[in-house]
């Protein structure tokens, strides 16, 4: 075991195979694919190891780095449209070398502006915060924290990444085509998204968008099925569901949400493809456009919205729940306290998951939907505040009387809670159908969701990267740079999104290329410029993180086995775990994951794999029973 632990990062498959052999677990499937690795592709080993790898840890890193590339791109797009919003009269000629024909006489083309916001939304929601966040950490942490050698199906897991990769390539390519990328908003409401006559982006750009999303959904389903199967079937000895770390509960429920809701988006995309290419009328009716009356009749654009938001709303929880799980873990570890109300935390996650399926139409209060439905969805939507509130109070109670170490991950977790509160509370306004009449599609909505699911999920992502970086790369990220990154980002996010609420309350519509034509909105020129400056600075602050990340992979301080003194199973693996995770036997689990600062114990943390018989001094009476 010790000689395994000393192996450098990504030790060759032969050794990991040895590790699996000695472990003697009935994981025939893993044995099989490892044989596959070793014997058939010995010559091109690196290719099967780093590129077409079936190791969940490598796949996680692939998701992470892809997500980071997408995030830079998505952030760049937002900087571009913030330039337009901040300086509507300014010249953009200097961008012409980059944007080419989309700069017309020093001005951003308004249709390209819509393409920018559309692609920013698509990239951030799906490619960064779904694939990059959940893909990375579900993959990385599920096997490590439940005590499994790998995912239930390593091959499907690999496919999941490569379908995502294919989807990414297609989406990326769509940025460069003649008519521009999709430009109907990330919600791609037809008829705008169905008719190339309505906006050029609805031509080839939209086709590529739909094809890309179809592959993306395949990727999500392959991943999700794997996560659920792994959590249910491959937990190590003693790891009952009530001993799972909250991260795993979050990933588990997230995967279930994804499996149940992504197919509905697929159906919406498929019907839209039919409408666009095969002359059907699912979403089209009574349309006269470009001097021509279309033959489509009887379709309903509102039907599309129902289908879209049936995914779209669970989607925001798919984005935020993994972040909630990781934040719970990081807060408990660094406050040196058990997470407060472990069962309530699981209960609220389950409650949020269930409710997330019955609130979708709160995005549609004023779309012409029957007002009676509006009242039902208002009721269901506002109930979500209760489990969300429970989570916030439990996080606060976890900090209370803790002994807090401010690692970069801890800072981002605290930042997450703060942003989640700020953004979540305005949901109470938007979920109220009456108030939504005024707030719908204004910057108030933009501010709300950027705080509660955009920035919060990003903060969860950062917390996760800073916290599990040592396990991923065997090195530490630089802490000081982490602090700088946190404070710049935290201040930046608030400076960007708080003023957006003001603009929104006044009724400033979103997706407006310029507001200067309206008296009611033109008073916000200063505030818009302020937001733009803050947004662009906050975006550039992210390069501190990018630098820190790549620098630390190669030159960071070497990590120890358990740098944060954490209790969960991933820290019982060697510093650089090979394929199979544990060189010897998989540790068995005896206790819940949050035995921090337990009274009577010498150390302030007791890992999950320490039996009660070894901690006689700190056992509670009922735990003492478990020993005997």
């Amino acid at each position, binding site marked *: 075991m010790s000689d395994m632990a000393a192996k450098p990062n990504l030790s060759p498959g032969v050794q990991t195979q040895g590790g699996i052999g000695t472990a003697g677990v009935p994981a025939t499937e893993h044995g099989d694919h490892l044989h596959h690795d070793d014997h058939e592709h010995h010559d091109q080993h690196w290719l099967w190891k780093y590129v077409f790898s079936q190791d969940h840890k490598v796949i996680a890193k692939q998701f992470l780095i892809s997500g980071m590339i997408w995030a830079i791109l998505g952030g760049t797009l937002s900087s571009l449209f913030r330039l337009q919003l901040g300086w509507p009269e300014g010249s953009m000629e200097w961008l012409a070398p980059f944007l080419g024909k989309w700069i017309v006489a020093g001005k951003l083309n308004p249709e390209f502006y819509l393409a920018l916001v559309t692609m920013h939304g698509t990239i951030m929601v799906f490619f960064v915060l779904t694939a990059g966040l959940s893909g990375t950490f579900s993959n990385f942490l599920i096997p490590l924290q439940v005590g499994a050698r790998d995912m239930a199906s390593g091959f499907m897991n690999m496919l999941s990444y490569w379908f995502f990769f294919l989807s990414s390539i297609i989406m990326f390519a769509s940025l460069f085509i003649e008519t521009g990328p999709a430009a109907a908003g990330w919600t791609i409401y037809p008829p705008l998204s169905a008719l190339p006559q309505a906006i050029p982006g609805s031509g080839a750009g939209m086709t590529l968008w739909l094809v890309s999303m179809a592959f993306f959904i395949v990727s999500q389903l392959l991943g999700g099925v794997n996560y659920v199967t792994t959590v249910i079937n491959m937990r190590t000895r003693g790891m009952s569901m009530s001993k799972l770390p909250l991260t795993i509960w979050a990933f588990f429920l997230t995967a279930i949400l994804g499996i149940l809701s992504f197919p509905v988006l697929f159906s919406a995309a498929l019907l839209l493809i039919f409408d666009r290419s095969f002359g059907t009328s699912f979403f089209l009716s009574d349309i006269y456009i470009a001097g021509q009356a279309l033959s489509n009749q009887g379709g309903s654009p509102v039907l599309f919205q129902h289908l879209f938001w049936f995914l779209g709303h669970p989607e925001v929880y798919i984005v935020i729940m993994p972040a909630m799980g990781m934040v719970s873990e990081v807060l408990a570890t660094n406050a040196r306290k058990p997470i407060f109300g472990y069962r309530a935390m699981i209960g609220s996650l389950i409650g949020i998951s269930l409710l997330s399926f019955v609130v979708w139409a709160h995005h549609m209060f004023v779309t012409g939907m029957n007002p009676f439905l509006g009242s039902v969805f208002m009721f269901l939507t506002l109930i979500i505040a209760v489990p969300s509130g429970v989570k916030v109070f439990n996080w606060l109670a976890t900090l209370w009387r803790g002994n807090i170490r401010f690692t970069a991950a801890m800072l981002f977790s605290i930042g997450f809670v703060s942003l989640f*509160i700020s953004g979540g509370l305005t949901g109470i306004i938007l979920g109220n159908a009456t108030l939504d009449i005024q707030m719908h599609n204004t910057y108030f909505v933009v501010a709300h969701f950027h705080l509660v699911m955009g920035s919060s999920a990003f903060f969860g992502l950062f917390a996760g990267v800073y916290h599990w970086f040592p396990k991923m790369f065997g090195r530490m990220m630089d802490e000081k740079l982490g602090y700088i990154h946190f404070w710049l980002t935290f*201040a930046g996010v608030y400076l960007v999104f708080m003023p957006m609420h003001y603009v929104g309350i006044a009724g400033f519509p979103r997706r407006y290329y310029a507001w200067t034509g309206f008296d009611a909105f033109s008073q916000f020129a200063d505030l818009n410029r302020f937001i733009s400056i803050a947004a662009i600075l906050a975006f550039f602050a992210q390069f501190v993180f990018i630098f820190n990340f790549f620098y630390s992979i190669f030159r960071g301080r070497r990590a120890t086995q358990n740098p944060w003194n954490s209790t969960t199973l991933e820290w019982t693996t060697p510093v650089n775990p090979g394929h199979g995770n544990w060189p010897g036997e998989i540790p068995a689990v005896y206790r819940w994951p949050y035995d921090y600062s337990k009274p009577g114990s010498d150390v302030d943390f007791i890992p999950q794999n320490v039996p009660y018989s070894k901690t006689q001094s700190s056992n509670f009476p009922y735990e003492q029973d478990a020993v005997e």
Partner: protein
Amino acid sequence: MTALTILLVLLLLLVVFGLLFRLQIFTSIFSGTFTRDIGMSNSVNAILMLVFLVFGGAWFAYSFVENFSKMNPPIASVHGHEMERMFWITMAVIGVAFAITQALLFWYSYRYQYKEGRRAYFFSHNNKIEVIWTVIPAIVMAALIFAGWKAWTRITGPAPKDSVVVELMGKQFNWLVRYPGRDMKLGVVNYRMIDAVNEFGFDLSDKAGLDDFTTNEIHVPKGVPVLIKIRSRDVLHAVYMPHFRVQMYAVPGMPTRFWFTPTMTTDEMRAKLGNPNFNYELACNQICGGSHFAMKASLVVDEPEDYQNWFAAQQSFSQKNPEVLAALKQKSKTLVSEVTAPAAEAKETAPAPLAASY
């Protein structure tokens, strides 16, 4: 060239940054502080938490007050005042929750920072307190839901019988406006009849449409319920009038509606704001294409008698465009000879059932 310069500058900055970073690491290695130092940076971060709470809170309070008047556009409808009250009451409720939770979050972070030798308090759950903070938000939510539901039902309920009716049709990228004329009935429109002259798609075989008139500007009387019927002829649009707290999508193939009662004429509002150029604005608030941001209409609220005069002075669409009527007569003649029952066509193109049917 500019692009190259920008890239070069960025590259140089990056190199300088990298060098500084290396330098910092080397000095810290030489000065022997490379092991994780919980003391110094930990308390700095803890203090920054407090600083962020105080200064962040102060900045937020200041900027909120500073912008308060700007974020409250004047309200000019009956339900608008009700909504406004509900909005600020809800804001107050969430403001209290916001202040308490944020203050606790940052205060706890500062107060319970790492101290050598102190041990965190093992506190895994407490049913009583958990029940309390589940039940209290649930009660508050119930109250908000109830208030919201009552107002929503009233606002989206059927328009009073004596409402003034205006129909708006969204198209890329402007709004078409139609009034029912003297008979107070809107005639049938059919998107297949649309052309450059007949932008609305009047089907003049329907007698009710003969006296309908179209205008460029929307006029409504003060103090009288106004029912806006909304259509779209191409993609989704949304009728959004922030001063009246009115918003409803325009959906092709599915007429929608919204009613409200204006409380202030345009002139009164101009006088009140001291802005002689003030106009009630109607913005499209659902992405509809390149010029979405410029899809604007203005609405004039008149005194009822002014409105009556304006209304009486309008000329109907069929009078203004006799050629449309003539073409229709020509067409129906040929139709009569071919098909025995022209009425069947008219029936088929009767307006689709309203989404918001009561």
